[in-house]
């Protein structure tokens, strides 16, 4: 770590951003918390705002929504800097989306989009269209979501982003959205592309989501061994990286897949693990053993 505090701040920030893109959210949060302390010590309000925004982004990615949201509205009210408006609006949109407050989320996402117009940053522009698409997908407006994902990808193509972040996420989301529209083969093909990009980018969060999506897709088209294998890979990654949402989804997917394969004991094991998250709901396992809920689920809906 450099002795110059400004250099330390820059190093922590750059490293933290890499951690976020690799899906290592715990280490990203550590870095940005240190950057916040440094900015406090330096009494530099501009650096402090940037560090707080970065910390919010990492906390959002890790699923700590309440903490991620803290202070963002105050920053947004005070700032005139387009970059800060973009990041705070985008993070607020993302936090609201995860709370199921879709209309408010869309409002902030559009504000972020307006802020982005003046910035020459195609990655950010693609990211915000991806976020708008995510909100539409959470609302089950699947056609609108597909259009936004495709638009986000076209921005990436025009800017020559190739296989850079966030193209992996956008393709993965588009693929999953096609699965929800029951266009399984097309969805699988796009998710496999996303998987290759995410693997080469070292984006473990996106890799985990791709495996989860593929498990769901193969289960729906009755290719159960493939569904099981991808589900197991997703679960391993989710446990290692503490992606709780993927873990729960995988316990469901693996329980369901083994059930459909006639492997009741294995199925029970996974449903039991899911049941542990919901001790107040003793009917859960019996419910899942009895009903096929795969057609009414959106595994990417946070609420």
């Amino acid at each position: 770590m450099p002795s110059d505090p400004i250099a330390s701040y820059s190093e922590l920030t750059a490293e933290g951003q890499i951690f976020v893109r690799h899906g290592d959210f715990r280490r990203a949060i550590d870095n940005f918390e240190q950057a916040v302390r440094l900015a406090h010590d330096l009494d530099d309000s501009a650096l402090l705002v940037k560090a707080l925004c970065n910390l919010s982004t990492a906390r959002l990615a890790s699923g700590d929504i309440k903490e991620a949201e803290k202070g963002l509205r105050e920053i947004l009210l005070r700032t005139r800097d387009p970059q800060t408006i973009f990041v705070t609006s985008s993070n607020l949109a993302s936090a609201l989306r995860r709370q199921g407050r879709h209309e408010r989320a869309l409002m902030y996402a559009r504000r972020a989009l307006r802020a982005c117009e003046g910035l020459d940053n195609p990655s950010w522009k693609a990211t915000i269209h991806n976020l708008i698409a995510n909100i539409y997908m959470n609302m089950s407006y699947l056609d609108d979501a597909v259009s936004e994902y495709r638009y986000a990808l076209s921005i990436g193509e025009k800017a020559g982003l190739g296989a850079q972040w966030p193209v992996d996420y956008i393709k993965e989301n588009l693929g999953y959205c096609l699965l929800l529209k029951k266009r399984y083969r097309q969805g699988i093909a796009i998710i496999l592309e996303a998987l290759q990009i995410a693997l080469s980018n070292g984006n473990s969060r996106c890799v985990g989501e791709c495996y989860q999506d593929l498990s769901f897709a193969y289960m729906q088209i009755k290719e159960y061994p493939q569904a099981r294998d991808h589900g197991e890979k997703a679960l391993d990654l989710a446990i290692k990286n503490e992606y709780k949402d993927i873990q729960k989804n995988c316990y469901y997917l693996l329980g369901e897949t083994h059930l459909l394969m006639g492997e009741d004991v294995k199925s029970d094991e996974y449903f039991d693990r899911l049941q542990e998250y919901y001790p107040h709901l003793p009917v859960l396992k019996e419910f899942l053993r009895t009903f096929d809920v795969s057609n009414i689920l959106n595994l990417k809906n946070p609420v």
Partner: protein
Amino acid sequence: MMTTKFKKQSLLVGSRIRALRKDRDLTQADLAARIGIQQSDLCRMENGEYKVSLETLFRILSVFEMNIAEFFHEDLPGALRERDAEVLRQFHRLSPRSQDEILEFIQFKTQFEDRLNRKSN
């Protein structure tokens, strides 16, 4: 151990949620607040247009505090269908002696059909 899967469409789940909500005198706003989703989303869920997360699905079960037989009673194989219920109603109207005769007749028919099945196998 039960392994049979009953394919459910989201429309059926949605209509069941609507029926349960009305049965308990809950408005869409009440139920949406208890599940933690927006009223507009609950409305679309009841119409089978909205896909839910596992969390929301389990929260719905939790809010209604019921077992699965109650949740989807008309679809369970063990649940009483209208015809079965009619047979029971008629049975209870009979005297104890007549009920015994009916039971003996059912046993006779069951044994007769079992014998027929064994022969055909």
